[in-house]
């Protein structure tokens, strides 16, 4: 609660929170908000020459190259974009935390092998690896989310590892062990609670990264597949027309930027609030 209050007091973070709320609500209530069905090619959606329409009173943000209402597609596109970026980051944080805790607590051979795995992953150019996997197995937004999480868990694992090793050396953990506490108790009572701030911060900041990765993959045609609209693949579909109908690229691209910026603003603020060691330094 104190955290939320502190968050509300920061103007930029509050702004980010509002944007995120609006996008989430738009995604949930899309069927009720969207003025037109997203995949229908409207009869008067193109002009006499077959070109997309600019913003008009009827089509607030204009129509796309197939004569579909852009605003409706943006509202529906929020669904795929949000599902993929939230899911991908959720998996990445979960897996990263698991690897980090395991490596940091167990140390020894297991820890060394796990941490060398993270070294290996950092040597891979993340987006290229995602492109490679997505080109090989492109079907469905769940696979896309899984692939994105695969290239984004490393950073969480590293931070959690560092924190867990320093926690595991603390005297209260040794005391707890000498009292006969098992691994499970130490993990649940002492290690995980200390990791909560880190998990919250990466749970937020990471979404900015995963949503940008989704946008890149979908823009290259290997992310969310049409006809399901996502902000990334909408930019891809209309990219060829950016000179005559720039809004078709700039509106979906701008939505991605706004969403990523919002998660970055909220995540940055959360880091300042939750991690006192960083306070005032950044």
């Amino acid at each position, binding site marked *: 609660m104190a955290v939320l209050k502190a968050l509300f007091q920061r103007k930029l973070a509050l702004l980010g929170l509002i944007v995120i709320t609006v996008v989430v609500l738009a995604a949930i209530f899309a069927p009720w908000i969207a003025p037109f069905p997203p995949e229908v090619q409207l009869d008067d959606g193109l002009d006499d020459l077959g070109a997309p329409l600019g913003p008009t009173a009827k089509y607030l943000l204009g129509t796309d190259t197939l004569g579909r209402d852009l605003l409706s597609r943006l509202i529906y596109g929020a669904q795929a974009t949000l599902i993929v970026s939230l899911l991908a980051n959720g998996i990445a944080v979960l897996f990263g935390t698991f690897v980090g805790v395991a490596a940091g607590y167990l140390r020894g051979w297991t820890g060394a092998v796990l941490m060398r795995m993270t070294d290996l992953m950092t040597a891979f150019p993340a987006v290229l690896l995602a492109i490679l996997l997505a080109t090989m197995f492109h079907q469905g937004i769940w696979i896309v989310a899984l692939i994105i999480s695969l290239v984004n868990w490393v950073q969480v694992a590293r931070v959690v590892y560092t924190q867990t090793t320093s926690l595991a050396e603390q005297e209260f953990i040794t005391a707890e062990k000498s009292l006969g506490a098992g691994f499970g108790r130490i993990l649940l009572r002492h290690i995980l609670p200390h990791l909560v701030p880190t998990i919250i911060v990466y749970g937020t900041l990471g979404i900015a990264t995963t949503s940008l990765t989704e946008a890149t993959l979908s823009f290259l045609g290997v992310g969310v597949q049409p006809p399901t609209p996502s902000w990334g693949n909408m930019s891809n579909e209309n990219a060829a027309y*950016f000179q005559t109908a720039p809004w078709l690229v700039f509106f979906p*691209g701008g939505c991605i930027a706004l969403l990523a*910026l919002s998660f970055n603003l909220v995540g940055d603020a959360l880091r300042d609030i939750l991690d006192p060691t960083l306070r005032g330094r950044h």
Partner: protein
Amino acid sequence: MGYILRRLIQSLLILIGVSIITFAILFALPNDPARQVAGRTASPSQVEDVRHQLGLDLPLPAQYARYIAKLAHGDLGRSYIQRTQVSELIGARLPASLLLMLGAIVCELLIGLTIGTVAALRRNTGFDQGAMVGALFFVSMPQFLVGYALLYVFGAWLGWLPLSGYGSFRHLILPALTLGLLGGGWYARMMRSSTIEVLRQDYVRTARAKGLSRARIVLVHVVPNGLLPIIAMIGLDIGYFMSGIVVVESVFGWPGIGQLTWQAINQIDIPIIMGVTLVAACAIVLGNLLADLVAPLIDPRIKLK
């Protein structure tokens, strides 16, 4: 010396790990490479012959050994579609990408380091806050959006710069600026916190107490020390650029390995994407190694451990 050796072995191990993963990915490919090479009209026995020729009937460790031996000779396999060696395709397009990367690094350092330093010196002023929000803004932009925005304003609307292509300095400006603006956001944030850290040091206070001019303190004492942590980042940057150029080269029609990758994506030409990924992974490992080896030369306080 021991450090350098250990670091070299470490890099080698990582490269072996990278090759194991790419080998595993090749193996997970849904289509049968023997069938691919033999062609659609081949009979089952012909496919088996090809399989034998390619060594695909050998046990896994033997296949991996062959794979490594080929890689060691710079053989990245053949493109499915273009029927040429992937290494030749990449080699022909590498210079264009390196030029773009060089331009991008110059742009991002100029933008990021200047803004980061000034923001740190004017900490908590309007400029600082504005610059940091601006940096976060660019960090949050999808690459294609920045690319198309610059292309629209300077290419289509003002008509100052060419819309796409390759061959002159004017062609380089927009793609390099696209990557430079995005990377510059990161550098501005890093340079700011690094400079703030330096400003707190005792030697800066001493310099002030000696009555040195502000310009001299900043240029001689603050900036060079603030730059040190940044050098390691330039090594890490290679990975970021390798991903960024796929989007930026396809937006600007820049004939580098990014565009090659983009074309390969559209034709599902896995060997090319795999080759580019391998080359990029090697570049990243080398970049990190180089950054680690150069850092102590610049700053003797960093001990080789």
